[in-house]
């Protein structure tokens, strides 16, 4: 069996599924989230840490175990960002431009890894959100990719409508702040540049998941080994190695940088390259402690720790006023819970049926960069929908049953009677009341005018009223709840409705 072809088949399928997952179809995304995202490193790791024993955390354990056996296969088979780079390499480098052995800059990825982990432990997800490969890919798929797909869809709608075909519907782009678009397209550009210039160098110098799996892979059971007797040093394998980890001069392959793409085995004509079991030869000894490298290492490590403390101090959530704190989706439990989990992959943003979920940039502080929030100017949180919790791979938005979700208070409503049309003009409006799904807004009749009043016990903060309110600025607004709570279920007073009027056969006119 050709392992390279197997890798290409699997990774292409995985990539297509990933792009599909971010196209916003609730059913597809939920299914893929429960299968494909099970094996995404960072989301699964977060589940493992925060809710031990959770099934999703198991994915992380399996990945770690598999890496001890097979090496960094995750980077070639499962990582969407890795596969995206492979596609770029294939398109822009083809087979003409050959790869070459690259020096290892071990210090950079390891320092970044330590920095990422330490900042995360201290409570700032800034590096996790920026660097996690799955989340990084998610933002590319959810914003530029999805926009393109929607644009094509809407063009087709225009054409079909000329022929009275209404099979497709105009789909509206969710709101993307310019800052978020810049970050997604910027990271897309960086990854593109890295892959064109030096193959998988991004994965081996910046990606913290790559660095961690690299450490594990140093001890992996299966690895690529060059048979020194058979090898003629033709450099065929070096030329196809995207990771640049084959050192033909020493006839060695660096297992910590190898992404297990199987290109080298395919390229070797002398079958001198094998993927086989071999116990790790610990080569720590090669490190010669010169004065210079000692100084560099010390500076890097201490700089890492100092830098780790820095982002926490930048606009922490506690310092914010209550009105400024963004509203988080139902299932995210509390702002504290949300801050510890979300990696800003924006899968929830792409799947939100009413487009109420929008990516915020720095509204959660630097610690929670790019996390999503509910924006009631864009839409409202649909009463009969729990899609975001169903798709969230990190557990930041826990999956709620629909009946639970319908009673989850994510915010508190308040009516400013000085701005409300009914109170100001004494004319009927009812825009908020007819949108309210929970009977939290009810009419009170005073002198033939129906005034809206609020009962907070029933309000879940879905924002239907705020979105509907016709005044500018809004007379009825929702503020976030730091800790979500449970609303009372509305029980209508005894029904005064007459049953079927079988006896009455006449008309009232």
């Amino acid at each position, binding site marked *: 069996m050709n392992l390279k072809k197997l890798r290409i088949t699997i990774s292409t399928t995985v990539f297509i599924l990933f792009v599909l997952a971010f196209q916003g179809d609730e059913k597809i995304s939920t299914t893929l989230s429960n299968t494909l995202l099970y094996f995404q490193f960072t989301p699964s790791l977060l589940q493992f840490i925060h809710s031990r024993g959770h099934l999703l955390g198991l994915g992380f354990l399996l990945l770690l175990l598999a890496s001890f056996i097979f090496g960094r296969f995750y980077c070639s088979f499962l990582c969407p960002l890795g596969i995206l780079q492979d596609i770029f390499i294939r398109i822009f480098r083809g087979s003409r431009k050959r790869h070459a052995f690259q020096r290892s800059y071990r210090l950079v990825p390891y320092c970044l890894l330590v920095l990422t982990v330490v900042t995360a432990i201290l409570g700032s997800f800034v590096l996790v959100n920026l660097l996690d490969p799955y989340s990084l890919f998610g933002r590319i798929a959810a914003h530029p990719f999805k926009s393109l797909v929607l644009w094509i869809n809407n063009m087709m709608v225009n054409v079909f409508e000329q022929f009275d075909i209404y099979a497709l519907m105009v789909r*509206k782009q969710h709101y993307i702040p310019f800052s978020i678009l810049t970050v997604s397209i910027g990271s897309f550009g960086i990854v593109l540049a890295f892959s064109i210039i030096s193959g998988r160098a991004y994965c081996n110098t910046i990606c913290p998941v790559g660095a961690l799996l690299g450490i594990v892979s140093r001890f992996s059971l299966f690895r690529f080994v060059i048979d020194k007797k058979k090898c003629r040093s033709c450099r065929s394998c070096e030329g196809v190695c995207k990771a640049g980890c084959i050192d033909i001069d020493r006839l060695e392959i660096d297992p910590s940088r190898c992404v297990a793409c199987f290109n080298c085995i395919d390229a070797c004509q002398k079958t001198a390259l094998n993927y086989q079991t071999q116990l790790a030869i610990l080569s720590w000894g090669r490190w010669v402690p010169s004065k210079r490298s000692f100084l560099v290492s010390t500076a890097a490590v201490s700089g890492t720790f100092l830098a780790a403390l820095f982002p926490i101090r930048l606009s922490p959530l506690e310092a914010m006023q209550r009105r400024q704190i963004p509203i988080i989706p139902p299932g995210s439990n509390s702002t504290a819970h949300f801050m510890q989990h979300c990696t800003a992959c924006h899968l929830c943003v792409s799947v939100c049926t009413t487009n109420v979920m929008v990516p915020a940039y720095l509204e959660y502080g630097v610690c929670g960069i790019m996390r999503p929030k509910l924006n009631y100017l864009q839409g*409202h949180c649909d009463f009969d929908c729990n899609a975001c919790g169903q798709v969230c791979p990190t557990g930041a938005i826990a999956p709620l049953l629909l009946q639970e979700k319908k009673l989850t208070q994510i915010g508190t409503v308040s009516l400013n009677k000085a701005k409300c*049309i009914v109170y100001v003009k004494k004319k009927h409006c009812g825009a908020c009341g007819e*949108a309210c799904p929970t009977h939290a807004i009810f009419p009170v009749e005073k002198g033939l005018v*129906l005034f809206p009043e609020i009962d907070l016990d029933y309000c879940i903060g879905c924002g239907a009223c705020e979105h509907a309110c016709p005044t500018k600025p809004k007379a009825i607004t929702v503020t976030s709840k730091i800790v979500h709570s449970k609303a009372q279920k509305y029980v*209508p007073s005894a029904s005064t409705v007459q049953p079927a009027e079988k006896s009455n056969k006449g008309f009232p*006119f």
Partner: protein
Amino acid sequence: MNKLNSKERREFLKKSLATGVAVGGSFLWGTPEILFAKAASSGTPDLVAVKNGEPDAMFNQAIFMMGGMKKFVKKGQTVLVKPNISFARKPEIGATTNPLLVKSIVAHCFGAGAKKVYVFDNVASSSYGMAQKCYKESGIGEAAKSAGALVAPGDNEKYYQKVTIPGAKALVSTEVHELVLEADVFINVPILKNHHYTYQSIAMKNLMGVVWDRMKYHSLDLEQSIADFCLFKKPDLNIVDAYRVMQRFGPRGSTPENVALKKTLLVSNDIVAVDAAASKVYGMEPEKVRYIQLGHDLNIGNMNLNELNIRRHVIGG
């Protein structure tokens, strides 16, 4: 503006031509009475009320009493059927028009020789994505399609054209769905239901679903705007579904327990009269519903039911 002018001109030419042919044709045929049928008291009723049947059976009876669908829909015409699909709720809640009734109306339109029948509503919830959900959950999308109608979208501003309403007191201009402007026949199919803030939602209120910015009504003067819109366009036929009548918690509704089974259907080409009659079916005097009174005052229709030629029928009674 230019586009609209040319459209109006074309429309006028078409209509005058059609009228001319109809008048000439009927004289040739030797039955000019049909043109003056309305004057005769035994002729077309102003309002037909049917009771105690299933939605489709009641409609069959009612349209027969109105003189048949052929009176309203001519061969080769395009028809717009506008039900109330404003909420993503099941028919049992009584928040949306009965799908069986919509299906039956579409079938009758085709039976009368309609070329195309469109069905759409700009749903009450303005958040993106809700329209699809409403079409699906209400069962109307499926029902209309099964009868051969084109279920058109109403959730994008590109389908709407700005119009001015001469004589309006509040709603001087608004954006109207192009199908309302283009269709030859406009059939309004509201459901009678409770409304927290206007007391009732019936035929006039249902026309809020053909404009793009319904919040403009709310911010100007809700009831005056509802009446004003009828100055721009009066439906050719109003068919009020009072099969299940939501009695409380309108317009969104609560549970099926808050619905009264009235099994009634009202048909009229007078939108004010049909609202007044429906209001009585609900159990409220029409004078209390402000937009009915305003509509009457603007001479859109007649709310004094005793001045009208009403024909009633109780199925099996």
